[in-house]
Each structure stands twice: as C-alpha cells, then as structure tokens.
C-alpha cells in the first residue's frame, strides 16, 4: 500500500472518530435530538471497505451508519447539519442520523431497519449493470441482521443472479444487548457458504486488513464473480445508542469492554504514520470538524409548513391533518 493510501485510510478513521465524538457532544448539548448509535471502535471497517470502492459504486448502511456515509465521501458538514435537523443537511433535515443519504456519492442511505439494505443494494447494482455501468455495491449490516429472513433472501437472490454485492457483516458481538452466542445458530460465514458465496473473516480493528480483504473481494466482483461476504470482527467502544449514557445497561463485562477497547483502529492505523503526518492529519480533521459544527449549527431550521415536502416524487400533495 502506498504511503498516500496509508495516510488517507488514517484520515478516514480519524475523521469518523472525531465526527462521532463531536456528535456525542452535540447530543449532550441538545442540538442533536433523538440521539445516535455511535460507530466508535468500528471505524476501520467503513474506512477500509470504502477505500476499495470507486465513485460509481453504491453502498447502503445501518442505524449505526455515520461511518459508512462519511467514508464513502459525503460532506461531514452537511452530514452534521442533517443530524441537527437543519434544512442545510444532506436530507434537508428529513432523515436524521438513521437515514442519512447522499445519492451523489453513491450512499443509498443509512437504513434503520435491521437487515433491510441487502436486497436494496442488490437491486440497485443489478439495475446499474443492466444499464452498462461497472458498479459494485456494498451492504453493511451487523451481527443482528444475520437472523433476518429478508437478508438471507437477499443473499440467495444476489448469489443466484450473480449480482456483484459485497455483504459486510460488522460483528461487534452484540445486537443491542443480545450477544452473538445467544442469537446465532451455526455461523455467519456458514450462512454465506449455504448460498455458495465465498466468505472471508477479517480483523475489523485493523483498517489495512479490512482494506486488503475488501480490495481483493471487489476485484473478484468486478471480474465477474458473484457476491461475497466479509465478516469483520470488531467491538463497539461506546453505547448501543446514546440513551445508554443516561440508562446504564448491564450486559458487557467491564474486562471485556477494556479488552475490546484496547484494540483501537485509530491507534492501530495512526501508529503506521510518521508523527508529522499524523499530526498534520489530526489538525486537518479538527479544522474540518470545527467548520462542520459551525456550519451545522448555523444552518436554517426547516419550515414546518413544508414538513411533508418530498413525500411524493410525483408531486402529489397529501391532505393536511387539521380539523
């Protein structure tokens, strides 16, 4: 990997890390209503996978979706404005944390329904290819999604029709409070095997390992291979959702949390840079995020009179609800 790629990868994980930390501050300050599902600890996966993609490729993510949206190239300032519910946000304040989307850079949206993105990405990639594009797609999902029938149906459809989709399972050990061992019969890679899909297990805490696995998989996809699965082993450093900052839930043993947090993708990738490069990236990210926070908080509030703008792409307007 070139030095430039190495630095770029660090920049992405650092950007996501600091974005999430700033977002949590904004949650605490009341600027982000409804809270967020922090991506802290899992940054290496979004960064590594999206580094393997081109501008024409498409992704769809999850409720824990900020990292995917940023890694694919969305503007952090407009993303943060979206989290703050501003008209200047990516979705004009209509989506928020769990639905942030940027079709301009191939982000078909974070998706708050567990297991939902697989079939959507499969259809989008199939359609783009039918129209002559060289697109591949990525569906990100958690370990909780592997028990959703909808996702398993999507595995079958993608494999059957050889649609080049990379299914990326971020196995952080828990679906909310449910440990994988309490939820997953068989294995995650075994589900891929059942549909004849190659599966790779990768250390999700190492951004370069993720990037290498994703790059190899994407090359096979572009060469005409069918879909593949990557299971990235990871650990969520913070709460399932920021509501846990108020209501501490007892489901992860402290020593496990300490062990999980000891392998930090930002530290792992940062150690691969020279001190000077790392400091320069860190300073650049701070500047960008300071501007992003300023942009977000200065953004206009959307007009309640247009609350249902964009409900219908056809231009249909809905009846109002008042008496």
């Amino acid at each position, binding site marked *: 990997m070139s030095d430039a790629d190495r630095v770029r990868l660090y920049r992405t994980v650092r950007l996501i890390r600091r974005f999430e930390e700033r977002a949590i501050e904004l949650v605490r300050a009341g600027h982000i209503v409804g809270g967020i599902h922090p991506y802290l600890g899992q940054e290496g996966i979004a960064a590594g996978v999206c580094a393997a993609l081109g501008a024409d490729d*498409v992704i769809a993510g999850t409720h824990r979706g900020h990292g995917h949206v940023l890694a694919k190239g969305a503007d952090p300032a407009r993303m943060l404005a979206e989290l703050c519910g501003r008209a200047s*946000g*990516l*979705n*004009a*304040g*209509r*989506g928020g944390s769990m*639905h942030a*989307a*940027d*079709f*301009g850079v191939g982000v*078909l*949206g974070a*998706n708050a*329904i567990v297991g*939902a993105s*697989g*079939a*959507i*990405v*499969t*259809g*989008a*990639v*199939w*359609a*783009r290819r*039918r*129209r002559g594009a060289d697109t591949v797609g990525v569906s990100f999902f958690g370990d909780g999604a592997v028990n959703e*029938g*909808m996702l398993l*149906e*999507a595995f*079958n*459809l993608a494999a*059957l029709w050889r649609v080049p989709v990379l299914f990326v399972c971020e196995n952080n050990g828990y679906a909310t409070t449910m440990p994988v061992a309490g939820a997953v019969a068989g294995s995650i890679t075994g589900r891929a095997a059942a549909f004849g899909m190659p599966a790779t297990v990768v250390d999700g805490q190492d951004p370069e390992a993720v990037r290498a696995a994703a790059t190899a998989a994407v090359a096979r996809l572009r060469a005409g291979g069918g879909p593949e699965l990557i299971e990235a082993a990871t650990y969520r450093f913070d709460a399932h959702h920021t509501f846990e900052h108020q209501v501490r839930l007892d489901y992860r043993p402290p020593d496990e949390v300490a062990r999980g947090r000891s392998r930090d993708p930002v530290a792992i990738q940062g150690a691969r840079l020279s001190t000077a490069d790392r400091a320069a990236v860190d300073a650049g990210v701070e500047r960008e995020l300071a501007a992003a926070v300023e942009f977000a908080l200065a953004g206009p509030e959307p007009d309640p009179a247009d609350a*249902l*703008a*964009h*409900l*219908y*792409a*056809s*231009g*249909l307007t*809905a009846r109002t609800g008042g008496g």
Partner: protein
Amino acid sequence: MPRLSYRRALTRALADELARDETVFLLGEDIRVGAANVTAGLLKRFGPERVRDTPLSEQAFTSFATGAALAGLRPVVEFQIPSLLFLVFEQIVNHAHKFPLMTGGQCAVPVTYLVPGSGSRTGWAGQHSDHPYSLFAHVGVTTVVPATPADAYGLLVSAVRCDDPVVVFAPAGALDVRADVDFAALAPVPLGRGRVHRPGDDVTVVAVGHLVHDALAVAEELAGEASVEVYDPRTLYPFDWDSLAESVARTRRLVVVDDSNRSCGIAGEVIATMVERVPLVAPPRRVTRPDGAVLPFAPALDRAVQPGRDQLRTAIHHVLKDG
C-alpha cells in the same frame, strides 16, 4: 368493436409499457410462463432480462425492485396472492414509500405492485381471499382498483409511468369482465380521477373495483323507483374528493359498497370526508365485509361475508327512506 377482457387489458398495458420504455421490467413468481395469465407471451417478446422469474422470496424481490428503481429502472412486481402484500408491507411502506421524504427528495421509487386476482377467488378460502387495498390508502401509497378493461389498461399504464410506488389491485371478480373496446382509443387513465358510470339524481353509490358491476346491476333494477348515480373512484389514494363531492352535493344521499373489512376500510373514509364536506339529507350507509372477516371456504359462506347486491339494495332503500 372488438371485445377486450380485463385480464388481456393488463397484458396489453404491460406489453405497451415494456415496448415504450426500456427501463420497465417485470419481476414475479412464474411470470415467464404466465401462471396468473397476465404476463402470457411477454417473455417471448421481451426476453428473460425484462420478464424475470424470481425465487419465492417476496421480501427480497420487493426490495430488489426498490433498489432497481433507485437506480433508474421502473419495475413492475407481480404478486400471486393478495395476502403476499402482508409479507411485503414492510418493504413497500417502510422503504419504497418513505425513501423520497427521508432522503429529502434525493430519489424516486417508481415501482408498480400488481395483484391480479385480489379479493375472493371462490373456494380459495382464508389465506387467498384478502382485499387489502384500504391498508395502502391508509399509509398513503397510491392505490388503484380498476373495474373495467379500459380502466385496467389505462390505470396500469399510468401506474408504471408514475414516479411513486403504486399498488394495482385487479379484483378476481373483475378479471373476466369483457367490454367492447376501440383498441385505438385505449389510453392512460390519470391516477386520482373518479368516474361516474351511471348518472342519477337520488343517491350516489360509491362502488370499489368489481363491485362497480354489482352497483350498476342494482341501479338498473331500481331504475323504476329511484335514480341511482354509480360513482367509481378508480384510485383510492389519492382519492378524487372533489368530483365525488360534486356528485354527493347533487344527490345528498350516499351509500358506499366496499370489499374491505369494516373497521378502517375505505368506505369509512369516504363517508367521513363527505360528511365533512357536504350536507346530507339522510345518514349515509356502507356495505362492507364484516369486521375482522376471514373468508370461509364453503362457497355460500364465502359469499355471505362479501358485500352483496341484497345488502346494497337495502342500504339504498334506507337512505332514500331516511331522508
């Protein structure tokens, strides 16, 4: 003039749209062979890329269609059984319908969901005889229920061309209706426009789908004693409230015949809206399936649970007498 059956009108609409617009394609179970006898012959003409048989994975292929629509295609998804819409209600309502608003207008989801043979199929019993169009009107997904071959053609064409998701219910009770049709005059029928099938002065009967034919028969029978206007909304959402209000403002009496279960069925909405808008001289009446109806198997029981001509006659007599 040549005779056109309702079913062949659907076939013709699909063929015309496939020929006119190369982004249109069909997706469904056994559609290559045309098991529901709507897509018959289309495979030969348009090939397997555009007439695609799916595995039995309704949730995946419904969201696959969403993804394909996000990428610029216009899928038409055929469902073999009306109750399969329950299985994909989540995919239609939570994803296809919500994407444009949630993304702040970044996308459109022009998918048509076609149900040939909705409602009772006589002898197909509980799980094959649902008529869930009111559910889609409730959530605000464009919903059409054509009654005649020309409307079946014209509304299906408009559904395919619409930039929003549209559910097209083709009632089993209408599939064998034939009409004299000037093929050259077949044209798109605008969504959201009702139609007066038979003008009258004394009472407006709103009839949905196949029940239009029952309403016309009853109106004819009663011709000696009352002048019955038969109004066919054709599209249940968005409903053509203005044209119905015009009719009801003239007759000032209203009966609705609707193959929904009674609670929260479209008949209730029609009555509520007309009561809000038009002073009536008699309490309005509705003829529907009973609350919570499950269609029993034996033909006499099946018929007993569906809205019938006797009930409609009685309801008309009530509103004429009460006023």
